[in-house]
């Protein structure tokens, strides 16, 4: 069973505020969805062998965004830096 408190706990881990009605709806829906996911318990274990290769390129300096471009979408900046919330 997923209850109200569990939804609030996960929301706090994910740093997402929910309103009361959302928390209520999510508790019921998560119950349905997580029960549905239970079927994964029956899946046969897979061979962990992978066919993946690392892909590297030389670590060369190349043109990137200018400081101005990088800051253009920031809601708040100060002295050419991003401005985040205060840290106490």
């Amino acid at each position: 069973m997923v209850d109200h408190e569990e939804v609030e706990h996960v929301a706090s881990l994910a740093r997402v505020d929910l309103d009361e009605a959302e928390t209520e709806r999510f508790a019921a829906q998560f119950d349905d969805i997580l029960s549905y996911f239970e079927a994964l318990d029956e899946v046969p274990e897979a061979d962990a062998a992978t066919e993946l290769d690392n892909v590297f390129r030389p670590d060369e300096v190349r043109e990137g965004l200018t400081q101005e471009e990088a800051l253009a979408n920031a809601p708040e900046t100060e002295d050419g830096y991003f401005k985040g919330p205060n840290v106490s």
Partner: protein
Amino acid sequence: MSSDTDAFITREEIDPTDEGPLSGRTVAVKDNISTAGVPTTCGSAMLADYVPPYDATVVERLKDAGARIVGKTNMDEFGMGTTTETSAFGPTDNPAAPGRVPGGSSGGSAAAVAAGEADLALGSDTGGSVRCPAAFCGVVGIKPTYGLVSRYGLVAYANSLEQIGPIAPTVQGAAELLEVIAGPDERDATTREHGAETAYASAADGDVDGLTIGVPTELVEGADEAVVEQFEAALEDFRVQGAETVEVSLPSVETAVQAYYVIAMGEASSNLARFDGVRYGPTAAATDDAEAGNWNDAFAAVREGFGEEVKRRILLGTYALSAGYHDKYYDKAQDARAWVRRDFAEAFETADVIASPTMPVPPFELGESLDDPLQMYLADANTVPVNLANLPAISVPAGETAEGPVGLQLVGEAFDERTIIRAASAVE
């Protein structure tokens, strides 16, 4: 939004930079694909004012190929939906079935093509988001093999699953657009050498004589009766043209939807952590929490601006990856993914392509399906296995029901887009 179908979030023209195979053609681009200087919202209030400082690789390739971009198309928020109704900018109507959804999440792209508001369009497909709207709007859509098309500049939802893909009125048109966007990109390390020299449009020759088409019963038996009727007619059309149809079995698809949602939500919860109101989006710095030094509370307050479906997926992804649940959900989903891959590999020992209805149902009425997320997820049953297996697939129109168009999905072996393009061109 500005047209009858509301296919576009932003209507702004971007000029071609060169002459090429797409000279004189117009292309609509899904609004999660970055366009330098033109807003790219992902259908989210969180990016309502975001203007990318650079082009996605596929956008550069379109411009170099002579295409004129005509706007950015509506979509489910961050690609999370099957109807385009989770967009923060309102729904899009289906030009092929007015009053019904265009499918999702690339619903605006498919609707723009179906309504003739663009010659071609780009969508992105994480679990069916190109093929579903193509099917519902009666147009053609291709989900390329993972690694064929660069994701550089595509705003990430679930990196291990998604590809950018073409939407067009014809198989030939979709293949021409694929030819332009495919091929390796040093800015996306998951792209492969495939596609650099491959011609796709020339494969649309309609020759299916001797082709073996596998039909997995698991992807047909649960489908709507009227959809199955059109699907069977398409199979008959193949047989008349000299193809053979054989039954194949994909038992692993029974847990594909579960595996897909666990993996996609897990990746989403991590990818969407970047929307914290510092580098873009509404500000995190000016809230009361921020002033008080409550750093995490300030982020959480900004992130309340996601829509409900996005919050649902971030939270479920966080849950499935959290201590104590990781083994149960995420690791088992990876096992289920490996199982799907093995199943397809076995099926391709007897079949050249695998056919099913793209969507098990006709397009829903607008507003019909928003309340029950699980029911919505189940509609993706036939498309998500393809993403889990990294394979290419095409959706091609295959008749109509009383409620709207039906799509035929053809799945091919990795990097064998030519075979599914050829097969699809035989029945369009």
